[in-house]
């Protein structure tokens, strides 16, 4: 089931005008920011389909940048995101792409700071809900029907076991998992799809394990 919470239906609280083109866009930006872990110096955004055609009218550009600045969908500062990004030293460029993607509301975000680089493809599927379909060029085979978490961690032995241990303790079953890293011994990423919802408190618990840098949920 795609929707698992009443707050997917009565919610999110958001600045308008469109749950898919504004709130969903803000969420894609924010997930990218959390996966990157810090404010990027430079972001290149490629817009596809309906995002490319109507982004100005819906404030999709503003919302994506707001998300990159770590603003939630309901944060009034989203409206001023473009100005704030400039003030905070984040350079953003937009490209309208003509390529047809599988879903009409797709954005590719490339975040950079020094030699750190992260590429994220996000899709806004309706009602403010999003899916991440690609990370650093790897296609994620998430079903989209299950809760998913992303764990950014130091690339060292035992990391996967520690995370799996916490999930097992809370009786959360892993249905799908992917691990990737940019270079040996540096930062790595776990993408975990689960049968049960992973609550914020469990995410916090994982985050506080040694070697964990960030935990991002897709709710």
């Amino acid at each position, binding site marked *: *089931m*795609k*929707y*698992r*919470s*009443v*707050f*997917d*239906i*009565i*919610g*999110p*609280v*958001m*600045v*308008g*005008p*469109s*749950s*898919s083109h*504004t*709130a969903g866009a803000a969420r894609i930006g924010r997930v990218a920011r959390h996966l990157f872990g810090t404010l990027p110096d430079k972001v290149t955004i490629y817009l596809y389909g*309906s995002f490319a*055609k*109507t982004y*100005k*009218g*819906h*404030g999709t550009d503003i919302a994506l940048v707001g998300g990159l600045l770590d603003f939630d969908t*309901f944060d*009034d500062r989203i*409206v001023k995101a473009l100005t704030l990004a400039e003030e905070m030293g984040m350079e953003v*460029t*937009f490209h309208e792409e003509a390529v047809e993607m599988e879903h*009409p*509301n797709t954005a590719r975000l490339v975040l950079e700071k020094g030699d750190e680089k992260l590429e994220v493809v996000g899709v806004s*599927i*309706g*009602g*403010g809900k999003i899916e991440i379909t690609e990370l650093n060029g790897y296609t994620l085979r998430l079903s989209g029907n299950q809760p998913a978490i992303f764990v950014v961690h130091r690339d060292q032995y035992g990391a996967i076991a520690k995370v799996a241990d916490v999930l097992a303790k809370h009786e959360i079953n892993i249905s799908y998992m992917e691990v990737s890293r940019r270079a040996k011994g540096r930062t790595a990423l776990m993408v975990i799809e689960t049968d049960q*919802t992973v*609550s914020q*408190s469990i995410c916090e618990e994982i985050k506080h394990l040694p070697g964990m840098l960030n935990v991002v949920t897709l709710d």
Partner: protein
Amino acid sequence: MFRTVAELLQIAETEKIPISEVMIRMEIEESGRSREDIMEQMGRNLEVMEKAVERGINENIRSRSGLTGGDAKLIQKYMESGKTLSGDTLLDAVSKAVSTNEVNAAMGKICATPTAGSAGVVPGVLFGLKPKLNPSREAMIRFLFTAGAFGFVVANNASISGAAGGCQAEVGSATGMAAAAAVEMAGGTPEQSAHAMAIALKNMLGLICDPVAGLVEVPCVMRNAMGAAQAIVAADIALAGVKSVIPCDEVIEAMHVVGRRMPTIYKETAEGGLAATPTGRRLAEKIFGSQTSSGR
């Protein structure tokens, strides 16, 4: 966890609890959060809705495109004349639905129910019925859980996205949700809620999503207005004891099939319907023409 309206009704009837309570218990179970926490979050959503309703009625709202704004105030002013044809409750709900969508179009803060484009119907009906039913704050929060329960079934079995299912999936779903919730708040049974949802949604089948210039403004604001009116009338019909011949789940499935077979020009692409009228096209050119020249 319930997947269908039939399952939802069955739980409500066996446990002898209202629909809102079924939804609350499922949320507790699924999320692992406490009842207080969940009720508090819905309470905050309620406050966002109330603020948006108040803003649209009291402030001078205008969207960036200039297409919408000020109509909620106009309707409220007309109500003061005492000469309304459809009556104060209905028009109050209509104006509050309009108010919410006008605030949304102006990049104001709203609560999506189930989407931003259809955010006016549920609060419009709720705050429109408030003077008449005088509900407690808890009853108002429960209204949102009941609406959410029906929306949850639609979202998982059909769609709540205009791009996937047309306006019937957005304003249609919202109208059914609001009708069902209005029944519970007025003291009706879970079964009557389901009939109200079915009756409301039946009359939204086939409704296309044809936004002028691709913006969530025209005809979205007025569609929400009429959605609120239909929701209240559907609730009244169900409360009177009228039953929908086609069961609610089958209406939802019909909506799903209609949405899938609907041509893409009628699914949020702004290529058909009102968006493709001479006026619609002229407005699109005017709005995007000027935005492009000032763009990056």
